[in-house]
């Protein structure tokens, strides 16, 4: 435990100023309200895409709070805002801005890729902590994050491609679609940008997450590190 807090305080100078819990709650509530507005708009205006996207996004925004309450895993306030913002900007985009603002798609891709990068980093840290036989020094984390995000991007694009084919065959409107070669490659490029940002700045915020998850899951019989 002391080792963890020591490593966190060592990393603190590199992290962004922490928002207070109140600020985080306000930001989250504000985004959730707008998401509710989008769902209502979808119902009233008869836009099924806005309903599905808005509802899924709204559910995702409750995950950080859920993790804290039910599993007692305290997340960095920024992490909560970050998760909420990623789904929020995507939903706003599919409601309106993807079509109107050319860089909106790039913004959401970098943002959601940064989230995937965070998941990848936390997974690697968890494996590193959990297995005695596996050791991943921090200088390799950078490469791992990039590989993880790029590979996930390929799987994601293939998933969208599959949805497109199903949509073409059946005529069912899908919440996701590909928009040609340029869009696919640009998605991959902005995914890499998001991954690079996380690999450079995100480790300070994420360094404790894997430890805290492990601690709360194995709190009875965990080894001391």
């Amino acid at each position: 435990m002391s080792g963890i807090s020591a490593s966190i305080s060592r990393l603190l100078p590199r992290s962004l100023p922490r928002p207070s819990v109140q600020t985080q709650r306000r930001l989250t509530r504000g985004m959730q309200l707008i998401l509710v507005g989008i769902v209502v708009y979808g119902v009233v205006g008869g836009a099924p895409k806005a309903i599905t996207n808005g509802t899924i996004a709204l559910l995702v925004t409750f995950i950080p709070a859920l993790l804290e309450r039910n599993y007692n895993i305290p997340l960095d306030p920024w992490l909560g805002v970050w998760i909420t913002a990623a789904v929020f900007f995507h939903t706003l985009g599919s409601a309106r801005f993807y079509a109107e603002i050319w860089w909106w798609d790039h913004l959401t891709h970098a943002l959601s890729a940064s989230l995937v990068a965070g998941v990848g980093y936390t997974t690697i840290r968890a494996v590193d902590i959990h297995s005695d036989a596996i050791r991943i020094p921090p200088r390799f984390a950078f490469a791992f994050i990039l590989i993880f995000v790029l590979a996930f991007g390929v799987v994601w694009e293939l998933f969208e491609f599959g949805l497109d084919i199903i949509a073409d065959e059946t005529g069912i409107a899908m919440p996701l679609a590909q928009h040609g070669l340029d869009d696919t490659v640009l998605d991959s490029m902005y995914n890499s940008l998001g991954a690079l940002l996380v690999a450079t700045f995100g480790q300070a915020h994420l360094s404790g997450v894997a430890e805290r998850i492990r601690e709360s899951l194995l709190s009875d019989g965990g080894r001391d590190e």
Partner: protein
Amino acid sequence: MNSHMDTDRSDSTSLEEGADRLEAAPPEATREDGGIDADAPIEDERVEDRIARLFRNGRTNALFAWAIVAVLVGVFAESLLDGDLISMAIITGLAAVVLAPAVSARDWRVMLPSELLVLALLPVLVGALFGGELGIFATYVALAALALVITVELHMFTSLRVTPWFAIVLVVMTTMATAAVWGILRWNADRLLGTNFLTTNEALMIEWIYVALAGIAAGVLFEAYFRRRGRRLRRAIWRVVRR
């Protein structure tokens, strides 16, 4: 197949002997690997010991591996004459990967298993010896083999430690990540240099499907490879890779 098995066996015997010989020399160096050596600098002896266990030091395997190196030298000479800088850089990198174990152990017989080298360098070898090109699937299986070789060498030479399952997951991800990077590079070349690598989104997606399949196939292949090696050799590899 049968003769191959025979050489396999003789190689593994000599490997085991080599490992025993080296193990006998530094008695402490081998046991404490479980995690204590995180801070200690890696001594030459211990590196040699790990290599002796993983890499075959049989003559047959080494001769075969050096024949592959000879082909690499030939390809390098050819690209030198053509003034092809990219090809020269790639070949130099591959040669470094192939020769790293022998150089670090200062023993010409310490080489990676030659079947793994053949698979990893298949696109280069096929291009050099038969003048053909492999399909996407085979190319990316080869790339996965190269990623496996590099992962194992990082495991040997740095503080990175992997297990077989983790190495395989990593290799499958690396294969797909490379496809993404290659796509990005070609797209930008098309825009900035006026090349015509990429055609349609559909073509790229079909390429990526093959890449994903190749990555998964390579993962299954390596899993089987780790399992089906001669019992002694497998034990030797797993002992090292597990650390």
